[in-house]
């Protein structure tokens, strides 16, 4: 084990980033043209980085597995993006925003990074507006805000319920502009299968063209991953079907440390699975909790229809347990409380896996019209999916894996432990600690890509100006390409009895059970066992039809699930080693008498960063966390 150095600049927290920018090395414009940067991912993080690097004049090769850069899963974010503009004059500022994120993350994030995120939030909104993002407006024409995710100020900017889409269209237009200028080469329908590393430095990638099946080699002076989160490992999640960990996991196997992989945020208000066929869970905006009351029947197994259950036989468990915050308790607490009720047999809905979110009282109080004006589109979406009218019958909601705080370990410059390999957006671990605050991740993805990487990557590339691109016929490329080919050949040759989805669903159910909202030593050990067995079974019994040199969506799924089956084990190992409860990581052994998280700052006040080994257990490295700008406190939402 070593202690990791995050290379945090000296000086007071509010000066670190400007100090860094004032002193980092630069690459001049003429040299930038000669340097190639590979960016994997066209979401807000990767797409933003690609556009910004293109503007600077670098030659950018931008890859995504989607058929268009516009489809990255950032597109699905509904709620909004935070920024410390203080337009509402309600006492917001950069420090407060920073403090909220540190506290929300339960003191498991890195102060300097979080402060920088808050600091850069201010400029982000300017950039988005200039791009044409149609944020909500006040009557006078200025920007509107709302409050979001349990903070006391209104700092969330939004574009109806489609904020992510609108931000991404801004990014995508910035990409288009650079494509036209000839500075971004776009490779859609290309999936990264491996990273090429030479003497500890990233020199390129191996990708598969999803149409021809061709395996290609691409070299670069630096590689940036913006490949998003891995919550799809649970199969049922709010992530898109193609979300994967392959790029990050392959980088991990090539030497990049993976940090806090067990920190997964479960969203309390998604739609429940309604049958065995369910392939994904749709998020219902958290804003519904402002007016909806959450309850379950007080008697386990009560299957009367909700309207028939009188108030005296309902358990409004959030209001009962957390009178101060009630239905607005933070995500992790609300999600865990729901799971407790479901596990205790109080679950409702066809699969008894949900709780009620009831608007009866809000409609009685404010009238149907007001509720419709607030949530009309959400009620419509709910009806579209379930066929149920939520004005009449309470909604069914359930917790669902939603966001991964864990990810590739990066230093202050967003560089991983592989030189020249960067990670931005949800695929790194940096800013959300053990629990992300609502509307902070669009922010993080954007500022990583638009503002931070373009500076920090220059600091690295400035010392590489004279170096030519690595030739793609070198032994490292040979080795990585043949590994990718072998994996594919092996997968196709098994011809077993179960489709890929079977393994993905089983893995997801195992993780949900053993390494989900709450974990214990026993469940995690069981999870590790089961995942190992499942992996073994996968390599003997998976059935993939079609070939390697053609479009083959089953093969694409298989290469992703193959990596998930390894990552799942590491998530359990990480959760097992962390003998405390913090944020979204709730270890049953470590709770107060009242059932609240028991954090252990002395023993676990660090980031766990795992190093892969070809044989044997991964090695744990630690980045100690010290807090200078805030006092460490215990969360209390009672």
């Amino acid at each position, binding site marked *: 084990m070593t202690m990791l150095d995050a290379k945090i600049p000296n000086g007071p927290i509010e000066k670190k980033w400007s100090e860094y920018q004032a002193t980092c090395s630069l690459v001049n414009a003429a040299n930038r043209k000669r340097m190639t940067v590979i960016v994997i991912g066209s979401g807000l993080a990767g797409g933003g980085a690609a556009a*910004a690097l293109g*503007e600077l004049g670098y030659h950018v090769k931008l890859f995504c597995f989607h*058929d*268009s*850069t516009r*489809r990255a*899963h950032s597109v*699905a974010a509904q709620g909004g993006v935070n920024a410390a*503009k203080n*337009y509402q004059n309600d006492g917001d500022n950069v420090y407060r925003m920073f403090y909220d994120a540190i506290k929300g993350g339960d003191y498991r994030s890195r102060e300097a990074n979080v402060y920088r995120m808050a600091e850069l939030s201010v*400029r982000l909104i*300017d*950039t*988005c*507006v*200039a791009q*044409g993002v*149609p944020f*909500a*407006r*006040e*009557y*006078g*024409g200025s920007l509107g805000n709302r409050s979001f995710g349990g903070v006391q100020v209104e700092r969330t900017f939004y*574009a*109806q319920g*489609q904020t992510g*889409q609108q931000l991404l269209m801004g990014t*995508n*237009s*910035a990409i*288009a*502009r650079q*494509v*036209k200028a000839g500075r971004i080469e*776009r490779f*859609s329908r290309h999936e990264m299968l491996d990273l090429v590393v030479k003497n500890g430095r990233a020199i390129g990638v191996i990708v598969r063209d999803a149409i021809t099946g061709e395996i290609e080699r691409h070299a670069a002076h630096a590689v940036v991953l913006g490949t998003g989160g891995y919550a799809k490992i649970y199969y049922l999640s709010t992530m*898109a*079907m*193609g979300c994967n960990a392959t790029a990050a996991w392959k980088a991990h196997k090539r030497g990049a440390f993976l940090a806090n992989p067990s920190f997964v945020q479960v969203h309390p208000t998604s739609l429940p699975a*309604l*049958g065995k*066929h369910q*392939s994904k869970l749709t998020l219902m905006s958290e804003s519904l909790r402002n007016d909806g009351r959450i309850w379950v029947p007080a008697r386990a197994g009560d299957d009367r229809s909700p309207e028939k259950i009188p108030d005296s036989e309902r358990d409004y468990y959030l209001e009962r347990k957390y009178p101060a915050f009630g239905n607005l308790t933070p995500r992790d607490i609300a999600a865990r409380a729901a799971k407790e009720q479901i596990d205790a047999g109080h679950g409702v809905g066809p699969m008894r896996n949900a709780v009620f979110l009831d608007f009866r009282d809000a409609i009685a109080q404010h009238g149907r019209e007001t509720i419709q004006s607030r949530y009309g589109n959400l009620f419509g979406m709910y009806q*579209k*999916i379930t*066929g149920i009218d939520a004005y009449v019958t309470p909604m069914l909601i359930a917790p669902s894996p939603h966001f991964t705080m864990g990810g590739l370990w990066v230093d202050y410059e967003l560089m991983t432990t592989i030189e020249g390999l960067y990670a931005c957006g949800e695929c790194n671990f940096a800013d959300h600690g053990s629990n992300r605050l609502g509307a902070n991740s669009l922010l993080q993805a954007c500022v990583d890509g638009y*503002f931070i990487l373009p500076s920090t990557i220059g600091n690295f590339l400035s010392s590489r100006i004279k170096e030519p691109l690595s030739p793609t016929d070198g032994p490292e490329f040979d080795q990585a390409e043949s590994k990718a080919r072998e994996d594919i050949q092996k997968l196709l040759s098994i*011809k077993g009895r179960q*489709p890929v*989805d079977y393994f993905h669903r089983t893995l997801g159910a195992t993780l949900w059970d053993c390494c989900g909202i709450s974990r214990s030593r026993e469940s995690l050990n069981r999870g590790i066992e089961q995942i190992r067995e499942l992996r073994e079974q996968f390599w003997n019994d998976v*059935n*993939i*039809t*079609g070939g390697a040199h*053609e*479009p*083959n*969506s*089953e093969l694409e799924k298989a290469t992703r699930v193959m990596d998930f089956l390894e990552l799942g084990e590491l998530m359990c190992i990480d959760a097992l080693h962390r003998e405390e409860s913090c944020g979204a990581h709730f270890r049953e052994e470590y709770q107060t008498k009242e059932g609240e998280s028991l954090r252990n700052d002395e023993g676990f006040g660090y980031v766990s960063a795992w190093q892969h080994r070809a044989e044997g257990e991964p090695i744990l490295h630690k980045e100690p966390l010290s807090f200078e700008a805030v006092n460490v406190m215990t969360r209390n939402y009672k």
Partner: protein
Amino acid sequence: MELNLRIWRQDGPDTPGQLVDYHLDNADPGMSFLEMLDAVNEQLINNGERVIEFDHDCREGICGSCGMVINGRPHGPAQGSSTCQLHMRSFQNGDQITIEPFRASAFPIIRDLKVDRSAFDRIIDSGGYISTNIAAAPEANSILISKDEASHAFDAAACIGCGACVASCKNASAALFTSAKVTHLVNLPQGKVERSTRVVQMVNQMDTEGFGACSFTEACEAVCPQQISVNHIAQMNWEYNRAKLGI
């Protein structure tokens, strides 16, 4: 429920395709349309056959990946819905459902129900943006935009780039898609600077890609999952004429 499906199968852009019959006897009314296809694919895998290829990702109507022609209508029978948001409760037990790809010469078929919509990206590349540098933006509230303008721009910007408008059009015109971007930007003060070059370049690119001309049948609006209005096309035409006349 039981379903009789006729699904377009085609190996590649240059091979002939045909409708093939499939039977599914355990569909659930709560399934989404794509989950129903997952079930068909699972049968195929169990029989050792290659699966039906189709694009999809978010499965919640926002990424624009999915899209197929269902019983002759792009995205199927539900109003204002993408294919992934369509549920089997919209069909009856025993129904016959015909499923085909989005057809247009500018959208070559890749395989089965998967088509190449990269022409849309090239239309955006040609000018569908505001030429602003990321770090060069003025203070956001220095640009005041009325609620109406913002919401008008939003209505257009909500396009998900699925291509149903093209598939529904007898001319395979991309006018609705292109106009949505043109009007999104021109309705905002910051988008007005480049209004003339933008609209001309985008319309030219649309023609270059081989999309047909718009003859205003309004079929596109009827199938658009985001219910983008054909008024945007009218506005685009106006913008185009304005640019050409130099007013």
